[in-house]
């Protein structure tokens, strides 16, 4: 587990205020994260470039909704990036468009949601506490960006089992985080 302790980033507050250079700083700080998330899921460089541009436009538009008491800045940005990348992938697979809750304004108030109010150490603890198989599925989904079909092929698990175990794993992680009771921010940013 990487060390923590550096002060958290707060580029989005500057972007929301319209501070000069805030968006540049945000791109410098989070460009690699967005690009990594998009490229591993989209796997088409031209489409990935277009999508990255759309994602930063959405980040610019929604920066005023970011609340550091609820999410880390990188988590907020990753949430937008993965949602856009997943939507793009679903469109290629001709799956119906899903409602985007992340574009809604009704974000939960701090402390209302036990799944989000966690710090990075708690996230690592929760990950380490999950069963080996769930942790392995999380790595394939979140870190490598594999589709469920690719995960099924890679692990030899039936596709339905991959789907069910990932869903239950996410719910289990939320429950674990609720029990660990940490707060989301401030150390989450320190590792990049």
């Amino acid at each position, binding site marked *: 587990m990487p060390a923590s302790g550096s002060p958290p980033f707060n580029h989005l507050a500057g972007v929301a205020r319209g501070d000069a250079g805030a968006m540049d700083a945000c*791109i410098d700080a989070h*460009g690699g*994260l967005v690009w990594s998330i998009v490229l591993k899921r989209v796997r088409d460089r031209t489409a990935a470039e277009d999508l990255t541009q759309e994602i930063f436009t959405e980040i610019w538009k929604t920066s005023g909704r970011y609340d550091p008491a609820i999410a880390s800045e990188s988590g907020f940005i990753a949430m937008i990036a993965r949602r856009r990348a997943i939507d793009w992938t679903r469109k290629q697979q001709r799956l119906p468009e899903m409602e985007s809750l992340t574009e809604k304004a009704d974000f939960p108030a701090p402390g209302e949601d036990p*799944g989000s109010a966690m710090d990075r150490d708690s996230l690592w603890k929760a990950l380490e506490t999950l069963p080996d198989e769930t942790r392995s599925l999380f790595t394939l989904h979140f870190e490598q960006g594999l589709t469920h079909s690719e995960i099924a092929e890679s692990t030899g698990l039936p596709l339905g089992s991959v789907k069910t175990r990932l869903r239950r794993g996410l719910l289990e992680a939320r429950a674990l985080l609720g029990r660990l009771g940490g707060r989301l921010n401030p150390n989450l940013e320190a590792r990049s």
Partner: protein
Amino acid sequence: MNFEERWSRFEELDAGRALGDLDAAELAEWQELSRDFGSDVGLDHLAGEMEALLTMEKPQALPPELAAGLKQQFSPTPVVEEKRGKVMLGPWLGWAVAACLLGLLMVNNLLPDKAPPAEQLLSALLAAAPDAKRLSFSPAGDAYAATTGEVVWSDSRQEGYMTLSKIPANDPTKRQYQLWIVDPARDEIPVDGGVFNIPAGPGPVVVPIDAKLAVHNPAAFVITLEQPGGVVKSKQEVVVALAKF
């Protein structure tokens, strides 16, 4: 199903929604259950945190040319081009007008998450993009004979808007309108320009174009009626209107 079973099913589907793996039947089931149990972004936040945590183990660097393009896109500084000792006033005035409009938009909206109305964005585009093309829509069939409208598109900004009148309102749960941009220089397959709805009521509606790929030399814009959520490739069974050079 009793209440607990319904809640448990909703939880599982909500996790599937956050993971992006719902199929059409599950999505319909989630939508029905969410009417009773509500919806929030808690699991989306958690998935985002997990993705950030695990992705930042081995992040890839943003390509420098893409980073530079993004910074230019969000830069408020106008570019003044000097040629043969003369300041090019045209581009400068365009930027100045755009800056003024942007200032007004910021004052009106206070925060950037409150997106300005499409009408204002269209005005700003027309003021700031000298390359913006304007084309009139023509109805494509008797059912849409009264349809009128115009499309404005800027290649340089990859931004555009449609102003549409007298298109029948659609029920988004049954059918949705979808724009297609024909750009033969890019591909013979039209580029998806986004899915949109037309509300009931009189008056023109301004619809932002949401081109999913870069378009550099559009030859035509075509509106079709499709299944909810749109399609990847239209069979053009119901063509509503088209605008072409």
